[in-house]
């Protein structure tokens, strides 16, 4: 329980994509300096309470688009992290980036600053699909961005891809997967497109102008990803994530293990010492709150032991290796068998989970019905 994940949210984006429901806001040059200041100040605030006796195992700058900030600011932020927290020697430091937003010089400075893992929002290798997704980059620009990063010495790259796009076919999806594999990335995330409330896509769908592929096809595309990527030597370690051995994302593994994490920035969430809280979304409000109070918590709650158990199951079952039962019992001082034995037994009979003395995990079939399975464990 001593290590900590550190998430920093950079909410600015050049453009909001139609499917995006993240907390992102248009680039605002007049506000961005103040935002970085607030972020540093908020870090100071939490470091006072949470840095003692804890090490930081991972840092993740997400967004928005973190590379909308000047590279000097990204340097300053990372320096401050080092200053305020005890980073583990092999601390994983990731930055999200979008193709075509970065130059070789920028990448070189990032590398020097200490960022060594880049997660690239590729989404697709087809220009028409990228256009449909509202992305500002082209497939060729993905090629050049990855090539640049490799040239600057980044040896830990992750590519995000999306499937089940309107009109998606297995052939087109295989093509995107093939081109992604050609980059020999260390890590891949493949996300089933979902239409979230409040997005442009939702409006389009309601108006009948956006149709997602039928469920059977979505499933086929998902299975295609699993098949292709595992055949290429990647380990399918979480519902949507694949990695070369040893390259699993440490930062995200901490979420799925329901570990403690500090989230800084507008709209960021944190789970620390049994308490969950969330910051104000709007950058200007966030800045104001931090200036006034040192932090910008909008709401917080302390899950009950039962809720915490459910969260742990909900997250842990996403990992294909499953949930370590002994660890779960130690953490909640309870017997798994007594609490969940009956549920597990019935799921086992239906072939939806696997269960041994060590771990509770989704079966191959259960993987596709993960939410239904997880629901069974809820009270």
């Amino acid at each position, binding site marked *: 329980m001593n290590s900590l994940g550190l998430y920093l949210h950079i909410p600015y984006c050049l453009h909001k994509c139609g499917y995006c429901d993240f907390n992102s806001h248009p680039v605002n040059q007049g506000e961005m300096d103040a935002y970085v200041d607030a972020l540093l100040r908020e870090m100071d605030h939490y470091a006072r309470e949470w840095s003692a006796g804890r090490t930081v195992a991972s840092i993740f700058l997400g967004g928005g688009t973190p590379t909308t900030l000047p590279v000097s600011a990204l340097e300053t932020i990372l320096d401050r992290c080092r200053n305020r927290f005890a980073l583990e020697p092999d601390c994983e430091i990731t930055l999200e980036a979008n193709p075509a937003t970065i130059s070789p010089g920028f990448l070189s400075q990032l590398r020097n600053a200490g960022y060594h893992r880049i997660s690239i929002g590729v989404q697709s290798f087809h220009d028409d699909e990228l256009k449909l997704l509202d992305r500002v980059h082209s497939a060729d620009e993905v090629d050049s961005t990855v090539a640049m990063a490799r040239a600057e010495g980044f040896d830990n790259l992750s590519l995000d891809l999306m499937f089940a796009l309107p009109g998606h076919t297995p052939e087109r999806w295989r093509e995107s997967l093939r081109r992604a594999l050609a980059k020999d990335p260390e890590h891949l995330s493949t996300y089933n497109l979902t239409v979230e409330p409040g997005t442009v896509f939702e409006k389009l769908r309601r108006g009948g102008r956006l149709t997602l592929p039928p*469920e059977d096809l979505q499933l086929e595309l998902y299975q295609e990803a699993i098949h292709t990527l595992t055949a290429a030597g990647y380990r399918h370690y979480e*519902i949507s994530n694949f990695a070369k051995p040893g390259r699993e994302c440490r930062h995200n593994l901490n*979420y799925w293990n329901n570990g403690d994490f500090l*989230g800084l920035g507008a709209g960021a969430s944190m*789970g620390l010492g049994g308490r969950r809280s969330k910051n104000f979304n709007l950058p200007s409000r966030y800045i104001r709150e931090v200036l006034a109070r040192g932090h910008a918590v909008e709401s917080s709650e302390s899950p009950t032991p039962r809720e915490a158990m459910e969260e742990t199951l909900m*997250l842990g079952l996403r990992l294909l290796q499953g949930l370590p039962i002994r660890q779960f019992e130690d953490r909640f001082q309870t017997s798994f068998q007594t609490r969940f034995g009956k549920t597990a037994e019935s799921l086992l009979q239906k072939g939806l989970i696997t269960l041994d003395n060590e771990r509770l995990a989704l079966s191959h079939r259960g993987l596709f*019905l993960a939410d239904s399975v997880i*629901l069974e464990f*809820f009270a």
Partner: protein
Amino acid sequence: MQQERIRNFSIIAHIDHGKSTLADKLILATGALQAREMKDQVLDSMDLERERGITIKAQTVRLKYKARDGQGYVFNMIDTPGHVDFTYEVSRSLAACEGVLLVVDATQGIQAQTIANLNLALQHNLAVIPVINKIDLPSSNPDMVREQLEDICQVDATDAVLTSAKEGIGIDELLEAVVHRIPAPNGEETKPLKCLLFDAWYDAYRGVVVLIKVREGVLNVGTRVRLMAAGGTFEVEELGTFNPAPVKTQSLRAGDVGYMIAGIKQLDQTKIGDTVTDAERPTEKPLPGYKEVKPMVFSGLYPISGEQYELLRDALKKLKLNDASFTYEAETSTALGFGFRCGFLGLLHMEIIRERLEREYGVSLLTTAPTVVYKLLTTDGQIVMLDNPSKLREIRNIDHMEEPCVRGTIITPEEYLGAIMALTRDRRGIQTKMEYLNPQTVLLQYELPFNEIVLDFYDRLKSITKGYASFDYEFLEFRVSDLVKLDILLNAELVDALSLIVHKDKAYYQGRDLAKKLKEQIPRQMFEVAIQAAIGSKVVARETVKALRKNVLAKCYGGDITRKRKLLEKQKAGKKKMKLIGKVEIPQEAFLAVLRTDGK
């Protein structure tokens, strides 16, 4: 008070014609309550009644009125329930009166219940004061109503009182009309005691409270009384009147209306319509008109979660204390487990009980489709009353079956005649009367099988006539009918709680329709669900709910955890309301889908 200064009357009206508001205004006008003490519509005492805007339990109030002639009068205003389910209770309340105020909405004119209620009043030879209400509304047409009253109801409407209960118009005139046009009661005080018991309820502190009208003789505190039909003997502990707060008195005399508390512990020791007499000096003959009230509609009530079985049983027991007209007995369904078969006076009565169980006792209920009682005649001459379709197969040697039929009265604007005829034909109705009340309004009478109206007839009627038609019915008789049992199977497993008894000619269509409706209601599960409708061993319809193959959230990172947990909690709460039958999860709505087989 001398008898000649007493006036006992009821207000009768079609629903929403303004009965309760008028009652409130009479209470206010006589000063029994101050305006600030009045909750809207005092007489509707239960929350549910106020919410639904109808009167469920009859109440009565005693009002003091100083007339223009300078004399003081006592009015006993006896409220009546406003729904066909409670017709018998209405008739008993009317039997306690000498007159009625027949309220008709000046914008709507006479409706089905107006006629039904008026007929009841005339059967009791009551004086009728026509009251044309809502005259403040721009669309009111008192002349039209007057004409209808005379033509259709044969009521002299020349002296009809025009009112707007809402605006307080005509109230004084109405009070005078009560004095002059409703006769005083005229029972002899010297005769042996003879009282009509016309309402009773259970009070947690006092036991059973009964409302009585003394017809003959004098009732005193301390008298030993006998309830002639129910057979119990009790000593009168307290007598009084509701003014509307209870006021004690030493005696009630012929002509008086009041309450009696006599150490009666259980509501079923009192029967509405019973005659109360002096145990030592009994009357020779009980009052006429007493009937044992029998439930007409039955339905299975099951706790959604088995753990609530005890809670449900206790709740039914307590409700029964307050409502002797509904019945319950334990039953077991293979599909639903342990529950109760309950009998109700009608559909509204069923809904009321159901809502009270859920609201006041916190039981989550699953209600099976209501069914009427069928009469089965066996080859060896036995008669079996069947209140649960799933029990049909236990009965051997059935010679034939009979179903209850009703006489239904519909009053409608004539433009909907075609639609109503189509509906009633579909419901196996036989038209027995058609009469133009005026060029635009038609009265129709039908003989209809009760099972054709028990589910959704009224809703359908309202919907095809845009709400304009009114409907009322009364029980007619049992008639021989060609009936079959329609079964539903889920993954080849019979769901007894979904079985229905239907007419043979309609079984095929209803089976298909029901299977389709169930398909819409049953959510996709982790395996395929086959829905079959069968008559005997013959499957007449099949639908499939395809298995859920994919249900997985693509992303769940730090910021999603709380939101995702809450979403799952919500889904879980929805799932808990479902009933597990075999392995299939069925939402409550699926059981109600049976209600909406509109059998075109």
